[in-house]
């Protein structure tokens, strides 16, 4: 794998990226249709629409073992096969580009630097699912990226990859960009659909699942940007070839957005199975901890996954090297493991105050709770308040256990998984750094 260095603009950083499947060609800043096509872009559309049935495409994606890259890691091919095709209603494909999980900034660069990769993936996937109107729901703050996507979509129309009777195949579709307006919860699949329908982003009660009752009450698939951008490679090279990349059930490559106290923050495309230690310390990736300090903890998959102290992020409790894969990061369950999640890799050095950091995230979740379910609406508020008073020297002895108790009362008791996600970072911080919390009591 090679390293590439970029200077995006005046206010942008040196971005470091390794090339592989998704970020292939990105070093040349390929925005234009011509350049993208010269390098084999849109080949998967030609291949699928001319020579494969929709079921063939779904079969390849199933074989690839691709799992949802937004954080839930549900097998994409299986999700597709749940789509109700017999209802007689229109079917929809919606791309979740509401990237809002703290620590995650991969989809943003993928869309900004190589928008045609996502568009190509959406055309092939729409063909496979029978969606004739597909939408990219992008978070409102990324307005300039929405404009780039719209310009790229126009190019695709001009070249006959979108619109009526694409490539003479008889398949027609339109693709639209839809702007959100600042709500973390809209990254939740059904909240996103509510928002796309012009409503508040309140998640829906499931079942029914989106595969039967989704957008406008019709069967719908919602996939993350990175998942959809992986589809062209899978169609071109075959699902089996994709499944050979990576390790075990963590097939393919994954975009990791690394941030915090490291020398080389940026977006890296890694092959699943890379040892965490190599990712963290190799100059090909994070390049070690900033200013020569020691590592304290890592949140490996976006702020919603459990935090792990140095000993447990580098090695499992059983002593095996921890790998960048769904399975390896989960090893040890919630006691000693975490999750790969969205790939938002947040690194903290020895000077980090875990209590302050935990309070900060609790404020985030309190602010972002949609307020629909009492355990989450009230619980996130309590968590923030209790952490705030701890942090300011007004904590009581039982507050630490109270924190854990509140997270337990939220977990599994809400319409969506936000209630779980808001509690896990706090419960894990207390589990692994209890003494730091206690230190605030004696102050």
């Amino acid at each position: 794998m090679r390293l590439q260095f970029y200077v995006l603009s005046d206010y942008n950083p040196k971005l470091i990226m390794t090339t592989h499947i998704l970020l292939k060609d990105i070093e040349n800043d390929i925005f234009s249709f011509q350049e993208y096509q010269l390098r084999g872009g849109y080949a998967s559309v030609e291949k699928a629409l001319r020579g494969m049935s929709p079921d063939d495409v779904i079969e390849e994606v199933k074989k690839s073992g691709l799992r949802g890259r937004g954080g839930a890691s549900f097998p994409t091919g299986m999700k597709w096969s749940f789509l109700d095709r017999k209802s007689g209603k229109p079917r929809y494909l919606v791309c979740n580009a509401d990237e809002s999980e703290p620590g995650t900034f991969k989809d943003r660069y993928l869309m900004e630097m190589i928008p045609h990769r996502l568009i190509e993936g959406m055309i092939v996937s729409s063909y496979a699912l029978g969606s004739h109107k597909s939408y990219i729901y992008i978070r409102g703050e990324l307005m300039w990226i929405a404009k780039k996507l719209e310009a790229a979509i126009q190019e695709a129309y001009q070249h006959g990859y979108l619109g009526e009777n694409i490539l003479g195949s008889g398949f027609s579709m339109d693709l639209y960009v839809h702007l959100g307006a600042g709500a973390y919860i809209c990254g939740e699949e059904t909240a996103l659909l509510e928002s796309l329908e012009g409503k508040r982003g309140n998640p829906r009660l499931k079942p029914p699942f989106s595969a039967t009752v989704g957008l406008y009450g019709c069967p719908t698939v919602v996939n993350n940007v990175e998942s959809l951008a992986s589809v062209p490679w899978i169609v071109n090279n075959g699902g089996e070839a994709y499944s050979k990349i990576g390790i075990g059930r963590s097939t393919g490559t994954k975009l990791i957005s690394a941030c915090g106290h490291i020398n080389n923050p940026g977006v890296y495309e890694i092959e699943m199975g890379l040892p965490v230690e190599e990712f963290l310390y190799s100059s090909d990736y994070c390049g070690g901890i900033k200013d020569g300090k020691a590592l304290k903890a890592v949140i490996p998959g976006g702020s919603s996954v459990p935090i792990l102290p140095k000993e447990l992020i580098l090695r499992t409790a059983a002593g095996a090297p921890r790998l960048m894969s769904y399975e390896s990061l989960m090893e040890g369950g919630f006691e000693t493991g975490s999750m790969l999640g969205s790939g938002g890799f947040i690194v903290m050095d020895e000077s980090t105050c875990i209590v302050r950091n935990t309070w900060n995230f609790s404020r985030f979740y309190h602010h972002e709770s949609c307020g629909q379910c009492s355990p989450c609406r009230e619980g996130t508020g309590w968590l923030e308040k209790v952490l705030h008073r701890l942090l300011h020297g007004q904590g009581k002895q039982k507050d630490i256990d109270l924190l854990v108790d509140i997270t337990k009362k939220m977990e599994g008791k809400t319409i969506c998984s936000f209630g779980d996600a808001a509690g896990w970072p706090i419960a894990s911080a207390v589990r692994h750094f209890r003494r730091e919390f206690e230190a605030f009591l004696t102050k």
Partner: protein
Amino acid sequence: MPSEVSIEFKPETMSKVTEIIARYPDGFQKSALLPVLHLAQKEFGGYLSTEVMDYVAKILNIQPIEVYEVATFYTMFRLKPTGKYVLEICQTGPCCLMGAEAMMSYLEEKLGIKLGETTPDGMFTLLGVECLASCGTAPMMQVGETYCENLSLERLDEIIRRLKKAS
């Protein structure tokens, strides 16, 4: 009546609105609400007054309450006037690891206002916002549609200087 008459999209914005509504299936014009509110906020002074929301409801043929409940849910919609430039500093975990709090206090001191306030001359509004997907270039803030990344005190000085000069 006079307030209704004074609020109307420019013809070019109106044709954009029509184009947006056409993206959604017949009968689901409410889907256009978020994108149209973005346009309305931009065109009518940077915030959504009740009159503006009522106007949008009329265009989309929905009840005003359907607009209010959406406008109050999403953080990008503002219900009160703001300064000419809104400085939105990310205050979430990853940015704070990289010094966002120092940037916020520096701006508070420099502009003489607290988070959430507007300078007396109406030039700057300072806000703390949640994660903007820019954690690799922290600390950062959004000014209008622009992301200002890898902030330092010097860079903040420069941004403020440039914005003052531009107005």
